[in-house]
């Protein structure tokens, strides 16, 4: 909502408060002022000129040489506008003038002819092109004939004005009108506001005899008022009206349409003017549309209507979409002589739906959607009739044509002063409260320790006690509220075990060298299921903004890979990223997808660069596997987790392990498949993804200390010759189960696949530690246990001791 402070002064005396200060007061007490706009934009030396003579420039077809009376002299100005003509009163920027954007006007020569200034269009005075009346959109603006040469043109155009741009929240639709803003300002500065005086002489002819009215859907349209004005002369509106509309962001059209828009801005009540003769039937019928019915609206769009759309008809065909936009067939035009002014109350939900269906938002629909003041419907019609009579020379027929079943009462709110003070944590005296209600123009009665309040109907948002709390507080001043903390039971704050574990996982991965990434949950349908740990239906948006963000992800890896590609393309020599986040799988009984928290990582490039001491390493499988092993150990799951060689779509078939927790699949670690790497412009890249929720919710016995061994342990190293394809982990597993309870530890310490081996064979070396917590082991006992191990290795692993 754009509020011209000059216009506002018609209704309220702001006692010389500077607009910027007023803006601050309005913001602090309820309605945010988004901007304070100086419409003069610092312009100077812009005056009224009288074009005395116009001749074509001898050297340039498109230029005219004008002799212009600018009050103190007659001067020559070259003008390029097609519509400049002798006799016009025009806007002249004199030499020395400064125009918006800092443009300075100087004396100049144009193609050899002297030019002392510039004849201006409205656009050159910083009025948006879409607000300039169509007649002047392509050229200079022509001022009223009675303008005085040399007079200040900015004053005449109302540009010596400050406009407040209000950022209205949906509850304050009352401030979508100049009168509403005047009420608000009046309450803030404790000043009375005044209404426009509406009086005119109506003709003896009775409106009801000329126009018939029938409303078929009283729910959607409980009140309809029509005024009929005869013998109007359609023309340009007076300048004061045009400039007020432009200040409010409305384009002037003609006097009748301008009046409806003016009253819309003034009262907040949308109006519509029909050409009575074009209605043809002398009848208005408000009904819901027929299926497939069509109407061409004022913007020249043909629109198909649906049965829940309310339309205004002439009894036969639609002439307007109720509350949204008029029809072209009944539009007021140059030759109109009789107009019907419609002022109605349309149900907000109905207008909202209709405007949404047609993707049509107008100044009218936006007000109906939020609910207009029931008590201004008729007043606005009268105000419009008065102005049309004044400005278009019309003759207002007697009375209104009206259907009215609208409930214009306001709900009474009963609230106790204690409730208000308790809710605020304050001690505002009752007299202070009632004084605020008076300033707000709320009717009230104080009795039995309660306040019985009737807010005016323009304040549709005042419905419950809490609304009164807010009204009192905002006018009293939020700065006055003291600062306290909740009293009562103290509560124990903290993270849940799950949340604490998640933080541990993140901190571990960061200590292990990975940066935390946050990527988008929405992805393309194509990527949604890639790398998913399980196969489940995807969750898709009904109306995505793009295919790229149409589906919820089932794996964190695709977007981490995108981040890797992004960084590598920017010459990062190392990318180590992880993410924790939800993936979305299938559907629960509630109808929502299963949301599971996963953790994933991507690593590529340099891992360790300590080259001056000869240590260099790029990321490989075992770097990332080591990080996963460390994570699992940190969570106490190392004994329950196994890695198995496996194939996963998109990963290198020989360099991928699935990760199992107590035998159940929880994730994988592996190298990205070389063709996938190439597709993403990546070199050797490793990824892992784990079901974080399953890891951190795995039930473990509480940690209990094991006594530190008091007796020496005995270590035996063995080197085994096995088939090349034999997994070392499997051998380790054989050793573990065969070693019995004396075997404390098995570590792999060497792998040899060189040419000293027979083809197809390799050597794996293990270090076995035997220990008994109760006593020193004897050689015999170790030999016994160890030979069991060797036997098992031979039988189950086909492994021979290397000679």
């Amino acid at each position, binding site marked *: 909502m754009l509020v011209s402070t000059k216009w506002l002064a018609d209704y309220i005396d702001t006692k010389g408060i500077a607009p910027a200060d007023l803006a601050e007061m309005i913001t602090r007490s309820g309605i*945010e002022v988004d901007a304070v706009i100086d419409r003069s934009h610092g312009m100077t030396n812009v005056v009224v000129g009288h074009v005395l003579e116009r001749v074509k420039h001898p050297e340039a077809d498109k230029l005219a040489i004008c002799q212009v009376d600018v009050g103190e002299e007659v001067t020559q100005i070259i003008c390029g506008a097609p519509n400049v003509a002798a006799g016009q009163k025009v806007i002249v920027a004199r030499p020395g003038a400064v125009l918006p954007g800092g443009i300075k006007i100087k004396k100049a020569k144009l193609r050899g002819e002297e030019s002392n200034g510039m004849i201006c269009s409205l656009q050159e005075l910083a009025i948006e092109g879409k607000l300039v009346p169509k007649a002047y959109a392509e050229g200079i603006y022509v001022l009223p004939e009675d303008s005085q040469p040399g007079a200040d043109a900015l004053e005449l155009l109302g540009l010596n004005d400050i406009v407040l741009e209000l950022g209205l929240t*949906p509850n304050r639709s009352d401030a979508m009108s100049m009168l509403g803003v005047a009420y608000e300002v009046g309450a803030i500065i404790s000043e009375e506001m005044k209404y426009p005086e509406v009086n005119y002489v109506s003709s003896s002819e009775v409106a009801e005899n000329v126009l018939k009215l029938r409303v078929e859907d009283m729910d959607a349209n409980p009140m309809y008022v029509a005024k009929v004005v005869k013998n109007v002369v359609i023309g340009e509106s007076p300048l004061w009206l045009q400039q007020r509309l432009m200040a409010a962001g409305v384009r002037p059209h003609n006097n009748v349409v301008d009046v409806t828009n003016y009253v819309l801005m003034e009262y907040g009540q949308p109006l519509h003017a029909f050409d009575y003769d074009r209605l043809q039937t002398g009848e208005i019928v408000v009904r819901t549309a027929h299926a497939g019915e069509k109407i061409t609206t004022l913007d020249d769009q043909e629109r198909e209507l649906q049965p829940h759309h309310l339309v205004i008809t002439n009894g036969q065909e639609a002439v307007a979409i109720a509350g949204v936009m008029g029809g072209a067939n009944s539009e007021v035009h140059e030759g109109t002589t009789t107009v019907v002014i419609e002022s109605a109350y349309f149900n907000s939900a109905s207008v909202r739906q209709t405007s949404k269906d047609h993707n049509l938002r107008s100044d009218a629909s936006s007000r109906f959607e939020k609910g207009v003041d029931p008590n201004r419907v008729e007043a606005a019609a009268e105000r419009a009739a008065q102005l049309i009579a004044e400005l278009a020379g019309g003759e207002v027929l007697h009375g209104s044509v009206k259907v009215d079943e609208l409930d214009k009462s306001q709900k009474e709110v009963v609230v106790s002063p204690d409730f208000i003070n308790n809710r605020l944590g304050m001690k505002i005296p009752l007299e202070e409260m009632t004084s605020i209600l008076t300033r707000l123009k709320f009717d009230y009665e104080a009795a039995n320790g309660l306040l019985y309040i009737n807010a005016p109907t323009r304040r549709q948002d005042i419905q419950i006690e809490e609304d009164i709390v807010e009204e009192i507080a905002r006018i009293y001043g939020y700065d006055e*509220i*003291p600062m306290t*903390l*909740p009293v009562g039971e103290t509560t124990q704050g903290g*993270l*849940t075990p799950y949340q604490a574990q998640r933080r541990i996982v993140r901190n571990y991965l960061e200590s292990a060298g990975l940066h935390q*990434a946050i990527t988008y949950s929405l992805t393309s349908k194509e990527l949604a299921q890639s790398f998913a740990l399980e196969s489940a239906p995807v969750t898709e948006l009904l109306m995505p903004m793009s295919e790229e963000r149409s589906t919820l992800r089932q794996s964190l890896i695709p977007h981490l890979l995108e981040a890797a590609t992004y960084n590598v393309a920017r010459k990062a020599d190392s990318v180590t990223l992880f993410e924790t986040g939800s993936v979305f799988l299938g559907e629960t009984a509630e109808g929502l997808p299963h*949301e599971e928290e996963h953790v994933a990582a991507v690593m590529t490039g340099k891992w360790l660069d300590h080259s001056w001491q000869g240590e260099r390493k790029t990321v490989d499988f075992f770097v990332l596997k080591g990080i996963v092993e460390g994570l699992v150990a940190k969570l106490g799951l190392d004994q329950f987790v196994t890695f198995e060689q496996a194939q996963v779509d998109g990963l290198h078939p020989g360099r991928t392990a699935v990760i199992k927790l107590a035998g159940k699949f929880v994730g994988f670690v592996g190298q990205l498949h070389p063709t996938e790497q190439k597709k993403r412009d990546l070199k050797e890249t490793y990824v892992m993804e784990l079901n974080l929720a399953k890891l951190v919710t795995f039930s473990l016995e509480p940690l209990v200390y094991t006594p530190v061994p008091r007796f020496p342990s005995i270590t035996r190293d063995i080197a085994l010759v096995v088939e090349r394809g034999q997994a070392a982990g499997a051998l380790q597993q054989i050793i573990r189960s065969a070693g019995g309870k004396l075997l404390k530890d098995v570590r792999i310490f060497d792998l040899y696949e060189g040419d000293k081996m027979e083809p197809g064979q390799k050597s794996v070396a293990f270090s076995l530690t035997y220990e008994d917590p109760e006593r020193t082991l004897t050689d015999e006992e170790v030999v016994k246990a160890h030979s069991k191990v060797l036997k098992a290795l031979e039988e189950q692993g086909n492994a021979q001791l290397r000679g």
Partner: protein
Amino acid sequence: MEAQLQQLKQEAIDQVQNASTVKELQDVRVAYLGKKGPITDLLKGMGKLPAEERPKMGALVNVVREEVTAVLDERLVLLEEVAIQQQLANESIDVTLPGRPVKTGNHHPLTRVIEEIEDLFINMGYQIAEGPEVEKDYYNFEALNLPKGHPARDMQDSFYISEDILLRTHTSPVQARTMEAKGGEPIKIICPGKVYRRDSDDATHSHQFTQIEGLVIGENIRMSDLKGTLSIFAKKMFGDDREIRLRPSFFPFTEPSVEMDISCFKCGGSGCNVCKKTGWIEILGAGMVHPNVLEMAGYDSKKLSGFAFGMGPERIAMLKYGVEDIRHFYTNDVRFVSQFHRTEV
């Protein structure tokens, strides 16, 4: 024999003095004082002496032995010192060379901000509540006093999955779910999480972003409690000398509703580019829980009241760290993320 002894002593002392390393000195010790050395030989040869000379001779040999030993030990100390000096000189390194790198990563800046806020409220007795990112329209809107057709739904254009399911547009549905689950009991929670709105991504908009909302419900919770709580938050996050102010606003789920500004931490209130010359920076929205919201979740709004607040970690991070483009948070450029490596307490 005595002369022989004196000569031996002289020889030994000369050898000791000539020894230039600990090793050479040990050789001298072995050569003269060892089991096979000449002094031991002399002692062994004493059997041939007359019995009355033996004690005198024995004493003499011991004196010589002690004298040689003393000289030798003295020399040993010296040579060991030389040796250690030599070793230290040899072992000297250039300590200005870089150490073996220990690679560490760090929190994403949003997580950094979120955890800081979480910890701050945990210390004030709050618990952290979480909920699904794909929500029912009921919890996202209806339970928050935003029935279907409510004009304020336009403020939050949403991604729908079906008519009744959408990507949550704020973390308030977690509050609604928590209230429903608590069945009328007091609540003190904050709800961090990802949210989604139908916005085109640009410098100030992101279709995915994060939110932290807070909710306190109890007996006689007052607006002054909200103001006091927010003031503590503002001071901890933005500095002890921050002032706060409340401005009226509108949210369907609170009444009264306010926006909270903090005094500009850059200029202190005199006006600068961070605060757009106003001296104040808008940080969050808040208010007293709307009675409809309480009643819908089964709370008696006549007996209990509450406050709620909601803020955007992106905005806070942008202000705190001077980040100018919200897209930085979702690009995961290592040159950006790794800047948030150091700790700040």
